[in-house]
């Protein structure tokens, strides 16, 4: 499993990406969405699009949740 830190994911999510259909590195929007899914879903520290599972874990660990909504441009 690829190791990606929570911080790296945060930086990636927060970074301001261009709003064109194809980015500077040549990725289409669809490719960006899939890359985002691959990056986050392989990270043990992030729940990818699964609020129910995250809520259960938050209750178990007695932690607050940080829910990030970031549009893929």
């Amino acid at each position, binding site marked *: 499993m690829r190791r990606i*830190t*929570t*911080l790296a*994911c*945060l*930086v990636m*999510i*927060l970074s*301001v990406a261009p709003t064109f259909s194809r980015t500077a590195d040549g990725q289409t*929007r*669809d490719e*960006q*969405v*899939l890359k*985002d*899914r691959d990056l*986050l879903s392989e990270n043990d*520290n*992030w*729940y*990818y*699009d*699964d*609020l129910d599972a*995250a*809520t259960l*874990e*938050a*209750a178990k*660990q*007695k*932690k*607050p*949740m*940080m*829910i*990030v*909504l*970031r*549009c*893929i*441009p």
Partner: protein
Amino acid sequence: MVRLQEIKSLADQFICVRLIKCNSLDLQLFQFDYDLTFAAFFLSADKTIIARYGTRNSHDSAEQDVSIKGLAATMASVLKLHKDFDNKKKWVVGKQPGKFRVDVPENFSKLSRFDSELTYEKEVSKSCIHCHQIRDAYREDYRDRNLPVPDKVMYPNPTPLLLGLRFETDSRATVAKVTTNSLAQKSGIKAGDLVQTLNGQAICSTADVQWVLHNQGKTGALDFVIKRPTTLKDTFAKINAKIALDEGWRAKSDISWRTSTWDLRRIVGGGMYLENISDSKRKQLKIPEDKMALNVRSVGKYGQHAVAMRAGIRKGDILVRFNERTDLMSETEVIAYGMQNAKKNQMVTLEFIRNGKPITIKYKLQ
């Protein structure tokens, strides 16, 4: 200064969730500024909202509104609130959502074509409901029911700039600048002040301030509790500041930067993108300072965004009258007039100046 290691340490104290679409988003819970490109919610395990993060003041300068350090500052304040949370819930009571018109975005007729899940295997980005589409659909819902769009929906999540306040990007709510002669300055708020609470709610971010503003009525009262540094090292004074919001306060918002305004340009302007003309151009055209003079920056070329073009409106035309109104001084005011005072399919008459000569053009609103 927040170091990267500290941010990682903060993030490790949360259950981190990435929501990647608004399809099937619970709108009875997730109520925020839908024109943002980045937003974060902080919830307890029982789904009590502790804080919101994410703000925006213009189309091109997102880096002035959000930052990793600013997010970290909000995260730190959320962790403080979450500790012994049962005894602190009174500080977040006002942050909880109200009743929304629909439970999920797909329940708006404008978004009913979307499924609740994304189609990853084919054109995934086209299967996604974007945040701003919730705003688009909400406004169009009023339009379809022949109702004027209420101020709260027309001018959502007002920015603190309306009060004359700009917060430091890298802080949770430290005042960076107070505009001269603004409501904030008159209340006594100063640069360097850290907002602790607003109307009894713990302020963890600029977005929290905006949520309080969002829920004010036609008039409003804002009670700030502020921590102000003193001349003695590491000592602070507690300051109270009050701001009264007079009727019409919200309509001073500038919505031109919002992504959802693109759809409003179609509905009201037939696809026109308007901008204020320069003072020199105004003088050249001999248009008084209190009269409308808006330059057509561009017109849409396709589909429903080409109504203005097909009606004969051209880039560079100067709009000086919209129906009977000659006092609409910005694109925002024109759009608000159309959304709040004119109905779908209503014919409107616009007067322009082109090459120094007046021309009149009519088209139907959408």
